[in-house]
C-alpha cells in the first residue's frame, strides 16, 4: 500500500497522484487564542463523549435529556389541552421556576463534566504536553473553564429557553416583543450565572485529584452535603436563615430567581413555611460571588502548582 511520499502514476502515464508526505510547514500559525479555543472545543467533545466509544456518551446525554424532558412535557401539555392559555395559566411554570424541575440534572451534569475536563489530563500526564504548547497554566485553565461552562449552558439555558419559546408559540408566554426579549435576556443571565457557579465549584474538586470517580463523588458530596447540613442547622435547629447561603445546591438557584425578579425560596417554618421571608438579595449575590471566586481560586492554585516535569 502506498503512503505519503510515494508517487503513483497511471498505467498510461497521463495521471499522477502526488503526495509529498511530511514537509516543512510555511503556512499561518494562529496565536494563543486559537490554542485556547482548540483545547476548549476538544474538552467539550470529551465531556459529551464525542469521538469516543458509545458508552462515554450515555451519562452526559442522559443528563441533558433529563433537563429537557420537563420542558418538552409542558409544551406538549399546552399544545394538547384546548383553550390552554386560559385553563393552564398558573399551572405551567415559567422559565424562572423551571430550574426547580431540573436541579438534580444540573447538579449531576456538573459533577460529571468537570472531572472529565481535568482529571484525565493529570492522570495520563498529558498536561505536560499541553504546557509545552503556547498554552500556559492560566490559559490552560481558561480553556477548561470555557469548556465546562459552555457545556453546562446546554442544561441551564437550553431547557428554559425551549420552554419559553414553546409557551410563546402557544400564547402562554410573555406578552409583547419587549417582554419576550426581556425574558430571553433573563434566561441567558440566569443560565450563565448557574453555569459559572456550578462550573467553578465542580472544577475545584477535580483539581484536587486525578481520579474522575473520586472527583464526581466529591462534587456531589459537596453540593448535596452542604444542602443537607445547612438545612439541619436552619430548619432543624432554628439557626439563622442566612446560613442557607452556604448551601451550594440552593444558592445558584436563589440567584437565578433574583435574576427573574421572582421571590426566593422559603427559609423557615415561620408564616407557614411557603410565605417565610426569603434570603435577602444582597446576601444571595454576595455569597454567589464569594463562592465562585473561592472555587476558582482553589482551582487556579492547584493547577498552577501542578508539577509537570522535574
Amino acid at each position: 500500500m502506498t503512503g505519503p511520499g510515494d508517487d503513483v502514476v497511471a498505467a498510461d502515464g497521463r495521471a499522477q497522484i502526488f503526495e509529498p508526505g511530511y514537509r516543512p510547514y510555511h503556512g499561518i500559525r494562529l496565536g494563543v487564542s486559537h490554542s485556547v479555543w482548540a483545547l476548549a472545543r476538544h474538552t467539550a467533545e470529551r465531556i459529551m463523549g464525542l469521538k469516543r466509544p458509545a458508552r462515554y456518551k450515555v451519562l452526559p446525554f442522559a443528563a441533558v435529556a433529563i433537563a429537557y424532558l420537563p420542558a418538552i412535557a409542558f409544551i406538549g401539555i399546552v399544545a394538547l389541552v384546548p383553550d390552554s392559555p386560559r385553563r393552564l395559566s398558573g399551572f405551567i411554570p415559567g422559565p424562572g421556576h423551571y430550574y426547580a424541575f431540573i436541579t438534580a440534572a444540573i447538579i449531576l451534569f456538573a459533577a460529571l463534566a468537570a472531572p472529565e475536563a481535568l482529571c484525565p489530563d493529570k492522570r495520563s500526564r498529558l498536561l505536560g504536553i499541553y504546557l509545552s504548547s503556547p498554552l500556559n497554566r492560566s490559559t490552560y485553565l481558561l480553556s477548561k473553564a470555557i469548556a465546562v461552562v459552555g457545556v453546562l449552558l446546554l442544561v441551564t439555558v437550553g431547557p428554559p429557553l425551549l420552554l419559553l419559546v414553546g409557551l410563546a408559540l402557544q400564547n402562554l408566554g410573555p406578552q409583547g416583543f419587549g417582554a419576550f426579549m426581556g425574558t430571553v435576556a433573563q434566561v441567558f443571565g440566569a443560565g450563565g450565572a448557574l453555569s459559572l457557579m456550578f462550573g467553578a465549584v465542580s472544577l475545584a474538586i477535580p483539581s484536587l485529584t486525578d481520579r474522575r470517580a473520586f472527583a464526581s463523588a466529591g462534587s456531589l458530596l459537596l453540593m448535596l452535603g452542604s444542602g443537607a447540613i445547612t438545612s439541619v442547622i436552619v430548619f432543624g435547629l432554628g439557626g439563622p436563615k442566612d446560613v442557607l447561603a452556604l448551601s451550594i445546591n440552593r444558592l445558584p438557584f436563589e440567584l437565578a430567581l433574583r435574576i427573574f425578579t421572582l421571590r426566593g425560596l422559603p427559609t423557615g417554618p415561620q408564616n407557614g413555611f411557603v410565605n417565610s421571608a426569603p434570603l435577602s438579595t444582597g446576601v444571595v449575590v454576595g455569597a454567589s460571588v464569594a463562592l465562585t471566586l473561592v472555587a476558582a481560586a482553589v482551582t487556579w492554585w492547584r493547577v498552577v502548582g501542578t508539577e509537570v516535569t522535574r
Partner: protein
Amino acid sequence: MTGLDVTKVWSTTQALSGATFAIGGGVTGLLGANGAGKTTLLGLILGLHRPDSGTITVFGQDPWLAGAEVRSRLGYAPEHDALPPDVAAHDVVRHLAELHGLPRREATSRASDALWEVGLGEERFRPVGTMSTGQRQRVKLAQAIVHDPELLLLDEPTNGLDPSQREDMLGLIEHVGVDLGMHVIVSSHLLDEVERVSASVVILESGRVVADGSMAELSNIDPELVVELDRLNEVDPAPALASTLQRAGLVAAADGPRRLVVALGAPSVYDAVRNALADGGYSIRKLERRTASLEDVYLASAGTGPPE
C-alpha cells in the same frame, strides 16, 4: 540556546547547580545519570519553571517570560507515557497540532503525514491504548514534529523499548535531525545512544554541566599516542620505554608488558617518542593516535562511574 549559572532547587533537592552551557544547531545529546538534572533543564527550556538564579535563553528569549512564543517553535516528547489511551493516534496528533497554532485543516493533513513519517501510517486511527510501547513512543515523536518545530526536545525517547525498537527510534531521531533539518536535544542516560545520534553533547552530573561541546572537540581532549611493541630479547619493553620517556619529561605509562600510552600534549611528543624508539632499538607493532570516547570524556569530567 544558552544557560548561564542556572540553579534550580525542588524543596530540598538541588536539581541544577550553576549550570552553564551553550547549545547550537544539529542533534545535541543531554547526557547524565538519573537525577542529574536533565528533565529539570528541559522544563526550564520550555518555560515551565523559572530558574532560582541564573539566566537561560532560547532563541534569544527568556522562556519563562516569552513562554508562548518560545514554545510555539518547540516540540516536546516527555519521558513518561503521556497520551490519552482512549483516543486515536491521529486525533491526538491533530489536536496537539492545533494547539501549536495550525488551522484545523492543516492540522488534520499534517497529523497523517507525521504519523506516516514515524512509521505509523497504517495504525494511525487506532486508539493509543491499544498500541505497543514502541508505537506509543512513535506517536509521541509524531506529535512533537507535526507542527514543524525549529527545536525538538526528546526526553529519554527510547525508554521502555527493546533493542530492535531502540535502533528504529534512534534511526528516526537521526532522520528528523538530519533529513528534516530540525535541531534536536536528546536527553538520555544511555552513553551509546547519545554517542550514536549526537553531534554535540552536554554532560550533566549532580546538577552541574561538567562538559559540553561537539563530539569532535570533546574527543580531542587529552588525546593519546598508543604504542604496541614486540618483545625485545625476551624482556618486556614497555616499562623501560615508559621510564625513558618520563625522564625526557613526557607523560607516559605502561599499559601492560608491551603496550605504552603517551599523552599528546604537544606535537613535539611525536619526535620524542620516535627518538626514544630508535635509540632503544625497539620493534614497533602498532603506533596510533587515540581520541577519547564519550565514556572516557564522561569519566574524566564527572569523576564518577558513567551512566549505562
